């Protein structure tokens, strides 16, 4: 029997496979495809303080080996999530979930984290700092080490749950941001969020996405995500959840060798709703081939 378990800040997962925020909703649709309790965990759709409709449509554009999304954090707001969605989720998902929160001010992150702190279903709070900081003239939290540290420290103060900061790849030095988060008390790093990308409709001569640009993800971004995880793993001492372009068991192994303790699968869920199940079934076979007994043994093997 292969041992697929990994531990994220004291939370033991049966396996390292976690659907990524925004690509799995609250799990309700996927449970029609397979028993989602086979997953390590899942990260639910990014939640903000107030309900948000999100961006105008079209919100989706296709790319070679990937896609662009511009959902704009559509969600029912933290109150509805805590009081309506989490209780419903408890009926079909029996493991601790990763609660992804977004925000446009430090206060918004703090409010969301506070409300999630008392939920026993939440295993980890994942703080998506890729949104622009409306209080600082739209500068991104994720591209400024001071802002990233400020959010981290503030969220840490209001919750006892492990806090993972989700980083954006659209920066000159992601290690600098990761280090700032670690120093500010982050329990782990989730990385990477989407690259900023764009497509133009050559017939209409206009951007396909109503908001012009959006977040580019899918298989195409794997080499960038892997490199960044490798760099950050060489810099910080907290666990990393590797995200970006993962679609196969081989990708999972490669990402773990780069230094990730667990992984999240994003866009691939949208084209192949069974991908996480496929990966979980394939992992023990691939481990056999590669002579790996305990999956956690390979974390950072390439460092």
């Amino acid at each position, binding site marked *: 029997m292969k041992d697929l378990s990994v531990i994220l800040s004291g939370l033991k997962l049966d396996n390292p496979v976690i659907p990524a925020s*925004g*690509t*799995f*909703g609250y799990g*309700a*649709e*996927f449970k*029609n*495809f397979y028993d989602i309790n086979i997953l390590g965990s899942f990260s639910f*759709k990014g939640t903000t303080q107030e309900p948000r*409709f*999100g961006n105008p*449509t*079209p*919100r*989706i*554009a*296709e*790319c*070679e*080996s*990937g*896609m662009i*999304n511009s*959902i704009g954090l*559509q969600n029912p707001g933290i109150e509805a999530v805590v009081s309506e969605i989490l209780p419903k989720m408890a009926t079909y998902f029996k493991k601790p979930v990763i609660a992804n929160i977004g925000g446009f001010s430090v206060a918004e992150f703090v409010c969301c984290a506070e409300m999630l702190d008392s939920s026993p279903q939440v295993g980890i709070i994942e703080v998506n700092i890729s949104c622009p900081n409306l209080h600082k003239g739209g500068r991104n939290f994720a591209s400024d080490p001071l802002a990233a540290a400020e959010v981290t420290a503030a969220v840490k103060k209001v919750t006892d749950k492990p806090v993972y900061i989700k980083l954006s790849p659209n920066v000159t030095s992601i290690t600098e941001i990761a280090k700032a988060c670690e120093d500010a008390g982050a329990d782990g790093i989730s990385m990477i969020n989407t690259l900023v990308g764009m497509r133009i409709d050559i017939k209409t001569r206009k951007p*396909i996405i109503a908001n012009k640009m959006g977040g580019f993800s*899918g*298989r195409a971004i794997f080499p960038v995500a892997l490199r960044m995880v490798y760099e950050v793993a060489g810099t910080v001492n907290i666990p990393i959840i590797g995200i970006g372009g993962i679609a196969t068991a081989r990708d999972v192994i490669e990402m773990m060798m780069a230094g990730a303790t667990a992984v999240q699968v994003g*866009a691939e*869920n*949208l*084209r*192949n*709703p*069974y991908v996480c199940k496929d990966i979980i079934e394939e992992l023990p076979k691939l481990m056999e081939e590669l002579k790996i007994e305990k999956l956690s043994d390979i974390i950072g093997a390439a460092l």
Partner: protein
Amino acid sequence: MKQVFFEIASNILIADKVYELKLSGDTSGITAPGQFVNIMIGGFFLRRPISVCDWDDGSLKIIYKVVGEGTEALSKMENGRLDILVGLGNGYNLTECGKTPLLVGGGAGVPPMYGLCKKLVEAEALPTVVIGFNKAVDVFYKAEFEELGVQTIIATADGSIGVKGFVTDAIKTLDREFSSYCACGPEPMLKALSDTLTIKGQLSFEERMACGFGACMGCSCKTRYGSKRICRDGPVLRSDEVIW
């Protein structure tokens, strides 16, 4: 909602750039006309959403227009297997159609009207069909609708066949009351219908989609009853909830 691997039975040109694709496989996931399927095409990241045109136990028919690279690639497949998610979306509600519904299809919006018409006829309703195209070479499925024994009016923008003008012009020629209307086609057509007709309608919308099964919020739209996902809560919306 189900993943099915279908075998291609045939894939033939039936009008200018329009193909009829017959597939065999498990159709038990399809529950209503107006639902759609989401087709994986080799080499493309996203699936392509296409309406169910017709189905029975073990076979599925869809009709698609070649508009870009995905549908172009699909049109070149003569045999083999296709990975398809079936039974997506709500579809039309037959009960709400009433006894004498008007079915309106425009261009690539015609196919779901065929399946709907068939189910209505089976349920002993008396639908009337109005379908619009740009010109004669674009027209398809006139005979198929007529074989169902329903009155079928064609409108073409250039008048090369049937009534000259839009579907709304053709509808004006029908001096009759309808219990409700169902429509699928370009958004300006849907809006024109909703502006002209006072009876209740069920309108099918399109939006760029990623998942097609409700998980990603890629296809949201605002309605009078809050935000809805075209792929899951739609594609069919009631005329009174649509915000134009």
